[in-house]
């Protein structure tokens, strides 16, 4: 009897949120755009009109035309192809770095929240102090000195974002630890693993999902920013950030080289932010605005 009630309650919470999300048109649009971008990134090698590094030196930089929908750059490379491949890298770095921050943040936060007491105070004090510093400076130093390795890039960028994740997770874990149903579960003799899996994790998931969705655009932004400064992704690989830099360098003569990657990046960031906002509103039990 109890189990039925519990399952029902769990289902309706998520269904409720899903329903609210579906009503938020901007969030749905964001999700759609994101899906398109990710799909495009995945199928690029098969779908791109030209080879990644195919040059056409006779053509040089050309405006958008029927043959090259987004034009070409100074080496005659098709811009659409470059934007597609750049998207692959940008998105990949985005997801990978977010995964890093997720992992570190969740472990750190869950540990602090679960252990509580002095350990928690200390751990959170460290977070507070680190929070105030501009991590980007450290990332810049890292990238300059330790080489432009893409794996290092994920790690470095991920390291910038884990703090808030840790805070969120710790807050959730702490408030859950003291709830009556967890105490009851402990009294009933459920194993720690069971408590964590069936009770803690579903309740922590909500804010974590929201934050992950909002971290990805931040991370992509940092990657783009680093690439723009010449410290991120390196040629021959390309990312939207790098493309934007190349475009900015010659924007007077060939503005389309700046415009298209900028639009691609901005739209993706838009989509992710709207989706993240929508998720946050949907999962917020207060149901803001209703």
């Amino acid at each position, binding site marked *: 009897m109890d189990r039925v009630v519990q399952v029902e309650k769990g289902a309706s919470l998520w269904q409720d949120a899903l329903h609210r999300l579906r009503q938020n048109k901007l969030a749905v649009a964001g999700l759609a755009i994101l899906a398109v971008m990710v799909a495009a990134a995945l199928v690029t090698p098969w779908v791109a009109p030209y080879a990644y590094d195919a040059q056409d030196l006779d053509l040089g930089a050309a405006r958008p035309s029927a043959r090259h929908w987004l034009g070409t750059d100074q080496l005659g490379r098709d811009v659409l192809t470059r934007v597609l491949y750049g998207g692959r890298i940008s998105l990949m770095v985005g997801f990978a770095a977010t995964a890093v921050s997720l992992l570190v943040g969740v472990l750190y936060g869950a540990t602090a929240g679960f252990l509580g007491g002095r350990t928690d105070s200390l751990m959170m004090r460290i977070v507070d102090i680190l929070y*105030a510093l*501009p991590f980007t400076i450290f990332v810049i130093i890292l990238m300059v000195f330790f080489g432009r390795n893409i794996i290092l890039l994920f790690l470095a960028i991920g390291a910038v974002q884990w703090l808030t994740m840790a805070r969120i997770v710790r807050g959730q874990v702490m408030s859950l630890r003291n709830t009556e149903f967890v105490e009851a579960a402990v009294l009933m003799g459920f194993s720690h693993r069971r408590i964590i899996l069936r009770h803690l994790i579903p309740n922590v998931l909500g804010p974590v999902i929201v934050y992950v969705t909002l971290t990805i655009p931040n991370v992509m932004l940092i990657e783009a920013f680093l690439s723009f*400064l010449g410290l991120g992704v390196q040629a021959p690989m390309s990312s939207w950030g790098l493309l934007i830099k190349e475009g900015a360098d010659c*924007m007077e003569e060939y503005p389309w080289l700046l415009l298209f990657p900028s639009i691609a990046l901005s739209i993706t960031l838009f989509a992710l932010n709207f989706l993240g906002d929508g998720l946050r509103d949907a999962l917020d039990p207060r149901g803001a605005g209703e």
Partner: protein
Amino acid sequence: MTRFVARRILEVIPVLFVIVTLVFFMIRLAPGGPFDAERNVSDEILRNLEAYYNLDAPLHRQYLDYLGQLLWGDLGPSFKYPGWSVNELILTGFPVSLELGLYALLVALGIGLTAGVVASLKPNTLRDYVPMSLAMVGICIPNFVLGPLLVLAFGLWLGWLPVAGWEGPSYKILPAITLGAGYAAYIARLSRGGMLEVLAQDFIRTARAKGLTEARVVLRHGLRGGLQPVVSFLGPAAAGLLSGSFVVETIFQVPGLGRFFIQAAFNRDYTMILGTVLFYAALILMFNVIVDVAQAWLDPRLRDEIG
């Protein structure tokens, strides 16, 4: 209150210490040295250079020497610009960056607060959706995209504003807007949220029941509470303005500390890097202390708790 402030200031010192140590060892342990680029230099001159910059001593010795120097406030000589000390470079570059940062903050607060407060007055109407959508655009267009686009539009196509440099007032407009735009957007969202929450409180109804005009209700009774999220945002915002300055100063060729830092990083100018990092860190930490104090002071309930 003074004890609170003093305690927060004291907390800053160990953090700075950790940062110095971390960065010091990080850059020294990295492959390559500051003079790798000078290939046309003979070995003997190289050795002299290294001796001058104390690079031939064992690492821990260098570290301790550096710490000793720090106590005197001496950040050492620049590796890349002989004859210049890091202190001098910072003193040249920082005022420029500070000016840029202040203008950007003014832009951000001016546009952001107005947009946010106006939007909160009539939620879920056009007066709300339009500014908030523009705010979203501001957040999603990175400053290194906005910068070139503004340059393209206002500098090259329309020719209204100069595209690079820092010589006069007209030079400062585009960089300030580029740097401030993203923060205007965040502040707009935060102030809208904060105001909405405050305006829904009971004491606002009491204020209306006293016969106050709507303007007075919003400004005199609502603003103080509604702006709290903006004040707490100022800390991270300062940090962001700082890192934003790297890009903006690079794009617009502004001779500020941000640009020096980036160049120093590329040039592996150890002392410059360390000095700038320390300077920035100290700056931000102090700024955060100020923000914390301001927040506590703004809410009378917190003021009493802290004493």
